[in-house]
């Protein structure tokens, strides 16, 4: 009896409980792992320091200490803040992350929503975070926050377009918007008659992959696109007035979103949970799939944070120019070429 059949026989509340727990784990555990691996350790080695070493072996429990610290802190509202908007903003940002993760499959049956419009839904809900950031920027009644929020809004809207256009190439080639079917299409595909490793779309959609990575970097507001938080000029942009729990939510949101976007990228371009040589629909992939995905997520996010801690940041007019004058035309050309090749072959 396969895992899916066992799962189907459970009661509704049990199914929901398992989905909820897995969803929380998929976002929070991955975010924690990324904070530890990249922010605490990888970056420390780049900067010739050790990073946290005291809490737990090699500082592995440092994150729990940080969470405990933030939970104890006072939840400060600025006197002139728009209380409701200010308070709700971090939840809106985090909600967008949790909504995005539901469309990402990690195995043939390990998904939350197996929608025919999976990637379409995902890109739609990922834009919700703009609202939260604008709410934070406006609600703080702080000039730095306002500038940061406005910069973030302009940037996220500008880079949403290349992100979507890069995905369109993949959708054309796979012929489906269903995330699981995109993985199957890559696993069963072949390139120049060679089907040994399938056809991860990074090979045929390499341009789209690079555009997706750049746009993803900008969506996550990481350097060189961190003008919205630009800590050397805007303190921390829209997060300036936040403290304690609400700051923690923003912080989790930042890393969880990085993980979820990397998961989307690995499904679209790197073959998702597929391992060459094993049938992607096999039952064992429900166990191995999440591990494969985790490896790909860690690899992709390492790229994100490596870039973040190496690159200086663009000025906002420069980064708008990059989006509108370079990324969007290249992405459009990629769609045209993909469409022509799809029709001819």
């Amino acid at each position: 009896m396969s895992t899916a059949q066992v799962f189907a026989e459970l009661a509704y509340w049990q199914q929901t409980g398992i989905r909820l727990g897995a969803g929380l784990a998929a976002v929070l555990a991955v975010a924690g792992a990324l904070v530890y691996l990249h922010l605490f350790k990888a970056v420390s080695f780049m900067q010739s320091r050790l990073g946290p070493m005291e809490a737990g072996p090699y500082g592995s429990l440092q994150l729990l200490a940080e969470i405990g610290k933030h939970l104890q802190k006072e939840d400060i509202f600025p006197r002139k803040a728009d209380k409701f908007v200010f308070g709700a903003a971090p939840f809106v940002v985090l909600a967008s992350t949790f909504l995005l993760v539901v469309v990402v499959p990690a195995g043939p049956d390990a998904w939350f929503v197996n929608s025919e419009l999976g990637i379409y839904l995902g890109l739609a809900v990922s834009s919700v975070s703009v609202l939260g950031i604008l709410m934070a920027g406006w609600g703080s009644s702080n000039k730095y926050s306002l500038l940061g929020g406005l910069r973030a809004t302009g940037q996220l809207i500008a880079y949403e377009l290349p992100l979507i256009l890069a995905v369109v190439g993949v959708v054309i080639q796979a012929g489906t918007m269903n995330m699981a079917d995109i993985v199957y299409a890559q696993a069963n595909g072949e390139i120049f008659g060679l089907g040994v490793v399938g056809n991860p779309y990074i090979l045929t959609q390499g341009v789209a992959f690079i555009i997706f990575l750049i746009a993803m970097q900008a969506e996550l507001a990481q350097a060189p696109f961190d003008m919205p938080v630009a800590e050397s000029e805007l303190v921390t942009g829209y997060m300036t007035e936040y403290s304690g729990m609400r700051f923690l939510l923003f912080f989790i949101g930042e890393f969880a979103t990085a993980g979820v976007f990397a998961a989307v990228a690995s499904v679209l371009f790197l073959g998702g949970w597929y391992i060459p040589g094993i049938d992607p629909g096999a039952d064992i992939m429900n166990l191995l799939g999440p591990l494969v995905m985790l490896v790909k997520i860690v690899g992709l996010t390492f790229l994100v944070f490596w870039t973040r801690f190496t690159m200086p940041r663009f000025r906002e007019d420069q980064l708008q120019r990059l989006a509108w004058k370079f990324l969007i035309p290249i992405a459009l050309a990629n769609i045209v070429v993909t469409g022509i090749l799809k029709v001819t072959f």
Partner: protein
Amino acid sequence: MTAVSSRQQLNYIAAQAADARVNLEIETEGMTLNIGPQHPATHGTLRIVAKLDGEQVIAADPVMGYMHRGYEKLSEVRTYPQVTTLINRIDWLGSFANEVPFILAAEQLMEVEAPPRAQWIRTVLFEMSRIANIVLFLGDMAVQVGAVTPVFFAFRDREHILNQIEAATGGRFHPNFDRIGGLKDDLPKGWIVETKQAMKKMRSFCNEIEELVMGNEIFQARTRGIGVVPADIGLSYGLSGANIRGSGVDWDVRRDGTTGAGGLVHNELDWRVWTHPDGDSFSRFWVRLQEVRESTKMVDQILDGLPSGPIMAKVPRIIKVPAGEAYVETENPLGVMGYYVVSKGGLAPFRVKIRSASFNNMSITPWLLTGVYVPDIITILGSLYFILGDIDR
């Protein structure tokens, strides 16, 4: 308007009033942004009142004095040897360089000259404090533009210099080592070899920064053509140091100084003054990078040709400076630093006026920041390179 009933009339008036209110709010006025006194980019307590139109600066006004410590006044109630303790804290990244012009002024008044070995060691420490200071600038400039990692390399490699300064003087940051008529101590054993190794590391650090920061396209896009200071404007605002050499003015007090460079031996060394014609933030960065390289060369030359002999001239145990006045300026890491010392023949100076480089360098900011965008404020301030202690004294 044809009012049918009083209710409609009231509604109309209310709508007009609401419209007027909305129009009033949408009409954009300049937003005043207080950058500082507590702000990560001003590394200290500088405050810049910037009037903004959107992200563009209409007017910017630096407000100084949040860190004023009254060293000029305090100097009047300290004896001459005690004053060096205070003025160490002016430019705290290159402390030894602060002591030199004051000591030279006092020596000029007393008509004492330090023995050759003391002069050469003075010059070594002077150039080393320049390296220690500017190395941090090279990393910090990258932080201002948004790259976090280079500053850690700067802190790591500056340690080699600070270790050598500590080994020679006993103080990492505040050596307090210069004396009227010479130096407190001779160099410790093995110092010369270690210092030469440290200089080698500094040169490799410069190459690293050149690749990592200066060669970066984004860094160049953020600094080239930003904050351009034409040479005549820069001179009229009294810029000095790398800020004016970045505008193409070939002027370095180490080479061209007329007043009392007698205590330093730059004229006997083989080095050159670097200038850059552009006058933008990038050229100021470039000039400073070359200066670090020149300084490492100078240190190597001095260590090779260090004369032997005493390190202290004959001065009385209780120093009384004869009446008179002297002005000595030297080329400090941040620019020209001068001390105008007036003595009435007592144990303490009657009046000390400190011409610190950062104060004059800052005075160009209202002219320079007008019309730039908010992110460029930070790069321009970073490239002008001020230290708050040097502005406020």
